[in-house]
Structure formats: structure tokens, C-alpha cells
């Protein structure tokens, strides 16, 4: 019964999304019916949210109560699974994850409607675009990925969830990433709406869509950090980023969203880059859609590709073409009416933001080609190849490095006309910090790496400049700190990446009881393996004593787990951190006679990778908070911008 309720709710949501699209576009005009249409569109947006939430709730209920008459539940859940993973199982499969996608889209539509930023007509047009997007995804769900399909007869027990996905980090990872992916749809809708409405909307939209850009960017930052952290502690390789196509699929929207945040700021503050910001808003959401296509269509084989159904891939591909083609068509149609951006001097903040955008888009292009080239080659019957990390180290890394090198100058230059020499004078202490960081790395660290010294110099440069920026803005609004915080976060992450990549030590031993091994400064004694019983798995748990002389300082317990319901096994790593360095243990295979392989890593500064991500996200949150507090003064500001 509940399954049918959910399906009915999805059908109602589809109908309302169509109403939303129609009334939204009517409401964008200045005709006699427009005010009435605008009344309808808000109601339709809220109605859609209610029905999609109902469908999602119904599906969640089916998972929690283990209703195996629903195919998706039977294929992806199990009665013995802990409650939290029954709930996260809702989006741990293709059908449910698409319902989550539409739920997030509806939430954003609701938020666009509730905040009503940028005036009635702009909001109405943006909601119209959101309605079209929702309709397309609801059609996709109902025709190719219905989550409420029944099984007859219903099995007594479910097939379980991929154990890799049974993890607190990964339970939160998809909703976070979706909040980012789909959040870019709001910027996309506002950009399209600005093109539809025309006139002054072409500068107002950047201000109106700013909170949505920020939310999307914060969520993407957190989502990527969570995914990378999960890969680090779950996969047992000690790595934090593998340049896997699935990871790249989340990195590309982040790069474009970052470019958009900077470009739209210039559009809003000085009127520069008007057309470019519109294109970036379209490009950012396009990257989200392409990411969804890569991850969900099954062209990639990974934990994320839940099923390989050509119909789904084809549908998403058509959707991508319609969305991107439609938006670009709209852009081309409106291009003659678009006003050029305001002029600026060569030495100005705009120039720095321009360089920021050039580097970000170029680095995104590197990732894009590296990700899609093997797929394209395979699709056209060529060789099967893969593009490895060395490609990204040679292309992405130097471009991103150049971006970081120039970053501190931007905030020190004035809009329209700045003074680079004066900015460099202000930043002198940061340059000093950079030199100290580089020198101390060369003196202290062993082995010595010039790249390491360079990375720490840039990190010192970034963090030092952020501190100077903070001191200069003392007493200013909270949101003024946001940029400094986000940029400092980049420096922190850079230190973590450099430390882990360059100075990681590694040991691989086959150990019997009582034997010891050393890795970096640590000595470990192997005290054997015990068999443990988890709620839905059996584990071989190794006991490794961390020795301090003859004293046992701590016991680490990496595990190998077997999930009988799913017929899978996986490693569970043990990580001991002091905030500056991780000792990382993974249990390998049983070599007989109580001997097991044990892999150990010492990763200096590893926690900084994710700490930096957190600091960046915090910067975003601060900026968002400042923005929403300013909301009351928005109409006045918008009127001023329109003059």
C-alpha cells in the first residue's frame, strides 16, 4: 500500500512541476495574467516539495520496516542491518538516490520561492526553470528508475547493502554532494531567468543567486572532503585522492562553482564579467549533470555505479543536451541585448579575478579531458586505456599551483584600479612567512624535496596573507572574514597534501604473534588475530600494540570483515592520530599459521587535508550568514544596481 502511495505522490509532483514551469514562465512577463501566474507558481513549488517529500518518506519507511515486496528494498536492504544504514540505504541505490536528487531540487525550489530574491519576475522565471528540471528528473524516475516497483512473491530476506557503503562517512556523503550538485541548479535557474527577463536582471541575478551559489559551494566542499576522508580510512591504501573518474565528477563542479563565486562577485560589485558569470552558472550545473551521468549511468564501473542500464544513460544524456543546449540557445538569443562588462584597469581586483577564473577553468579542462578521454576512446571502438595520476600531476597541479601563488594579491587590490606594488608591500610579512616555511622544510624535513619546500612556501604565503587580510579588516562585518578564512583553508589543505604525498613512510610485513615491525618512528608488536561478531558481519581483528620501549602505549585493531548477507568482505583500518601525523594500519590476508600481512603507513600532516576543507567550508558559511543578514536591505540595493 505504501509503495503505491509513494508512486502516486511522484505523479502529483510531476503534475505540479509542470504547473510550476508554465506559471513560472508566464509570471516572468508583464502581461495581465502574470501576477496571477506568480501566485500559482509559489503554491506549485511548495506543493511539489510536499509531494516529493512524501514519496521520499514513503520509501524511507519501506526501508526502515524492511518491506521486501518493494524491489529496491529487497535488493539493497537486510533486516539485520543497523537502523542508520537502513536509512542511508535509501540513497545507496540508483532509484532511491534519484528520489533524493529530486527532493533536494524541490527543497531548493522551495527556498527560491520562500526567499523571493531579485524581485517577483526574476523569482518567477527561476522557479519556472526549476520546474522544468524537476519535471525532467521526475519523468526519468517514473519511466526508467521507479523506486516503488513490486516483487511478487516478496522474498523473506533482502540482499543487503554493499558493505563499503555501510559507513557513517558514506551515509552522509551522497546527501552532502547532492546538496552541492543540485544547489548549482539554483544558480543555473537564476542565470536562465535573467536571460528570460532581460533588462536589469542581468546584473541583479548575481546578487539574488549568491546565497544559493554559497550553499552549493559549501556542500560540495564538505562532500568532496567527506568522500576523500572515506576513501582514506576505508579503502586501506592510505591515499586520500585517486583521480578516480567518480572523484573527478565531484571536483569539476567544485572548480566551476569556485570560479562562479569569484566572477559573480565582480559582476555584483563592479559590473564586470556580466556575460561570463552567466556562462559559468550554466557551465557549473552542466558539470553537475555530466557528473551525474558519469556516476549513475554505469559507463564507469565502481561502487557508485549501481546499475548499468543503457536506457538510463541515454535518458540522462538527452537531459544533459536539452539543459545545456537550451540554456546556451537562450544565451545566444539574448546575446545581442547583453551589455558589456564595466571597464577596469590592468592593476585591479577584476584582473586578479579574471586570472582566477582562467586558472580554475583551465584546471577543470584538464580534469575533464583526463576523465572523458578514455570513455570517448572506448565508445568509438579504440583501445581501452586509463589515465593515471601522473597526468594530473603534470597538468592540473601546476595550473592550480599558479592559482594559489597569485591568490593573496586579489583581496589587497581595489576594484577597478589597484596598486600591485602597494599590495606587495602590505603582504611583505606573508612573503617572509613563506620564506621561513620553505627554509625550515629544507632544514628539518628528510628527505629534502624542493617541491615540498615550494608547497610550504605557498601555504605560508596563503595563510600569512589571510592573517594580514583579517587584521586589516578588524571590526568589519563577519562576512568580510569569509574570504580570508576560505583562502587560509586552501593553505592548510596544501600542507596536508604535500606532507602526506612526499613524506609518507610505508611498511608491509607478514607477522606472526609476538613479532614486531617498525614504521617511521613507531614500533608495533603483533599480538595475534581474534574472531569477532558484528551486527551483520564477522571480523578477523588484529591486535597490534604500539610500543614505547617495553611499555604498551596503545593497542590498534585493524580488521578484515566478512558480510555474509552481501557475500562481500572488506578491510577496516585502524588510525591513530595526534593531529599532526597519522599512524595508519590495515590488515591484509591470512598467510597461515597465525601469520597475517599488515600494512602500515605514517602520514605526516594527513589530518590537515580535511581540516583545511573544514576551514574553507567555514569561510563559506560565514559569508552565507553575512549575506542572509543583509537580506533586509536587498530591495534597496537591487534598485540601486538597476540605476
Amino acid at each position, binding site marked *: 500500500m505504501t509503495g503505491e502511495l509513494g508512486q502516486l505522490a511522484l505523479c502529483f509532483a510531476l503534475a505540479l512541476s509542470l504547473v510550476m514551469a508554465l506559471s513560472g514562465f508566464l509570471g516572468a512577463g508583464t502581461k495581465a495574467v502574470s501576477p496571477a501566474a506568480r501566485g500559482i507558481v509559489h503554491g506549485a513549488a511548495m506543493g511539489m516539495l510536499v509531494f516529493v517529500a512524501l514519496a521520499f518518506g514513503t520509501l524511507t519507511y519501506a526501508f526502515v520496516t524492511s518491506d521486501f515486496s518493494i524491489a529496491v528494498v529487497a535488493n539493497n536492504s537486510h533486516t539485520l542491518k543497523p537502523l542508520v544504514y537502513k536509512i542511508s540505504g535509501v540513497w545507496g541505490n540508483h532509484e532511491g538516490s534519484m528520489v533524493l536528487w529530486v527532493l533536494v531540487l524541490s527543497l531548493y525550489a522551495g527556498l527560491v520561492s520562500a526567499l523571493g530574491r531579485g524581485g517577483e519576475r526574476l523569482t518567477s522565471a527561476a522557479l519556472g526553470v526549476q520546474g522544468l528540471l524537476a519535471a525532467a528528473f521526475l519523468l526519468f524516475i517514473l519511466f526508467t528508475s521507479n523506486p516503488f516497483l513490486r516483487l511478487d512473491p516478496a522474498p523473506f530476506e533482502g540482499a543487503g547493502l554493499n558493505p563499503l557503503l555501510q559507513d557513517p562517512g558514506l551515509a552522509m556523503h551522497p546527501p552532502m554532494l547532492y546538496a552541492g550538485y543540485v544547489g548549482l541548479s539554483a544558480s543555473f535557474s537564476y542565470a536562465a531567468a535573467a536571460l528570460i527577463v532581460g533588462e536589469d536582471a542581468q546584473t541583479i541575478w548575481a546578487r539574488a543567486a549568491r546565497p544559493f551559489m554559497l550553499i552549493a559551494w559549501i556542500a560540495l566542499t564538505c562532500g568532496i572532503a567527506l568522500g576523500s576522508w572515506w576513501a582514506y580510512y576505508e579503502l586501506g591504501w592510505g591515499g586520500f585522492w585517486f583521480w578516480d573518474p567518480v572523484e573527478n565528477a565531484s571536483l569539476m563542479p567544485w572548480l566551476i562553482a569556485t570560479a562562479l563565486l569569484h566572477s559573480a562577485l565582480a559582476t555584483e560589485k563592479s559590473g564586470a564579467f556580466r556575460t561570463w558569470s552567466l556562462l559559468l552558472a550554466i557551465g557549473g550545473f552542466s558539470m553537475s549533470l555530466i557528473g551525474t551521468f558519469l556516476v549513475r549511468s554505469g559507463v564507469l*564501473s565502481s561502487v557508485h*555505479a*549501481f546499475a548499468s542500464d543503457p536506457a538510463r544513460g541515454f535518458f540522462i544524456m538527452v537531459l544533459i543536451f536539452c539543459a545545456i543546449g537550451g540554456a546556451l540557445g537562450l544565451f545566444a538569443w539574448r546575446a545581442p541585448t547583453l551589455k558589456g562588462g564595466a571597464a577596469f584597469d590592468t592593476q585591479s581586483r577584476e584582473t586578479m579575478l579574471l586570472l582566477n577564473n582562467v586558472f580554475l577553468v583551465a584546471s577543470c579542462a584538464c580534469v575533464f579531458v583526463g576523465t572523458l578521454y578514455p570513455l570517448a576512446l572506448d565508445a568509438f571502438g579504440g583501445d*581501452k586505456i586509463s589515465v593515471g595520476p601522473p*597526468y594530473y600531476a*603534470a597538468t592540473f597541479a601546476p595550473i592550480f599551483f599558479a592559482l594559489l601563488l597569485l591568490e593573496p594579491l586579489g583581496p589587497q587590490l581595489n576594484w577597478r584600479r589597484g596598486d600591485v606594488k602597494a599590495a606587495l608591500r602590505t603582504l611583505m610579512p606573508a612573503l617572509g612567512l613563506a620564506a621561513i616555511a620553505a627554509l625550515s622544510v629544507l632544514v628539518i624535513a628528510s628527505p629534502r624535496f624542493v617541491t615540498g619546500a615550494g608547497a610550504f612556501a605557498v601555504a605560508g604565503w596563503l595563510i600569512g596573507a589571510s592573517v594580514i587580510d583579517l587584521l586589516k579588516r578588524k571590526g568589519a562585518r563577519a562576512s568580510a572574514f569569509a574570504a580570508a578564512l576560505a583562502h587560509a583553508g586552501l593553505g592548510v589543505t596544501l600542507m596536508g597534501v604535500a606532507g602526506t604525498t612526499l613524506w609518507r613512510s610505508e611498511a608491509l610485513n607478514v607477522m606472526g604473534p609476538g613479532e614486531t615491525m617498525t614504521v617511521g618512528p613507531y614500533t608495533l608488536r603483533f599480538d595475534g588475530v581474534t574472531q569477532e561478531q558484528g551486527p551483520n558481519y564477522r571480523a578477523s581483528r588484529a591486535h597490534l600494540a604500539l610500543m614505547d620501549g617495553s611499555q604498551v602505549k596503545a593497542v590498534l585493531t585493524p580488521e578484515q570483515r566478512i558480510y555474509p548477507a552481501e*557475500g562481500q568482505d572488506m578491510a577496516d583500518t585502524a588510525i591513530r592520530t595526534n593531529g599532526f601525523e597519522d599512524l595508519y594500519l590495515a590488515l591484509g*590476508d591470512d*598467510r597461515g599459521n597465525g601469520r597475517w600481512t599488515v600494512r602500515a603507513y605514517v602520514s605526516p600532516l594527513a589530518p590537515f587535508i580535511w581540516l583545511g576543507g573544514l576551514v574553507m567550508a567555514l569561510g563559506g558559511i560565514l559569508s552565507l550568514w553575512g549575506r542572509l543578514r543583509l537580506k533586509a536591505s536587498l530591495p534597496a540595493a537591487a534598485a540601486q544596481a538597476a540605476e
Partner: protein
Amino acid sequence: MTPKKRRRLAFAAALIAAGGALAAGIIYELGQNTQYFRSPSDIATNKVAPGIAFHLGGLVEEKSLHHGAGADITFTVTDGKGTVPVEYNGVLPALFREGQGVVALGAMNAQGTFVATEVLAKHDEKYMPPEVVDALKRSGHWQEGGAPSPKSSGPNS
């Protein structure tokens, strides 16, 4: 030409030059850093040069897995037509089994042995890497339904 126009022209020229440099760099690096996928019969018929990294895929031959000193491991990869001996020093993925599909990254040495630097973990016992399926199909040793893709089978299987 007004100064504004001249600036625009200079900007456009710089952008085109940068774009060209980027494209050239990407194409060059792609050529340097792509790893091909090879099956054992590919190696038998068209000798792969030693020292060039590639992905080797196939089935782990039954009873071919031997543990050496320390973490050393040897096994044989087959696709029914050819076999390649593999050396590896490391931890095997949890789902490594004789008779099952495997993908390894590494290079041939002068003795005709594949020295693996990485044996890829696949996360599902029913799962067969698509490259391996392809290789088995080409060598005529693929059995339909033998190894379906993840989650495509029914809940009772």
C-alpha cells in the same frame, strides 16, 4: 584603433595563446600517461615492451597462487588462450580468488614476468571488471551469466 580596442585584441590574443598552450600540454601529457589494458593473449601475440606500465586483466589461474618470502606473491593470469606469470609484493585485495577476475597495474620485466605494483580491489564477488569480460569474450572463453555485473541479479541469488 582605439586603446580600448587594442586592449581587447591583446587580451583575445593572450587568451588564444594560453588556450593553445593548454591544449598542447594536455595532448602531450595524455600521450605520456595513458596506460593500456592488455590481456594475456595480447602479450603472447604482440609482445609488450618491458618496462612500459599497463593494466593486465584476466582470470587468476586455479592453483597458481604461491606465497614467497615476506609479502611476495606469485600467481598466473589467464584468458584461456595465453597465460602470464605475475609477481607482486603487497597485500592482495580481499576479494582476490583463484578462478576469478583480476586487474593488475605494472610492467613486464626482461624475463617475461609481469611485475605488479598494484592489484586492484574489486568490491563484489559477483563482479567482473568489464575489461576482463571483454578479453574473455575475445578469446572465446566467456560464459554468459557466469559473472553478471553488480546488483543486476535478483535478490535471492
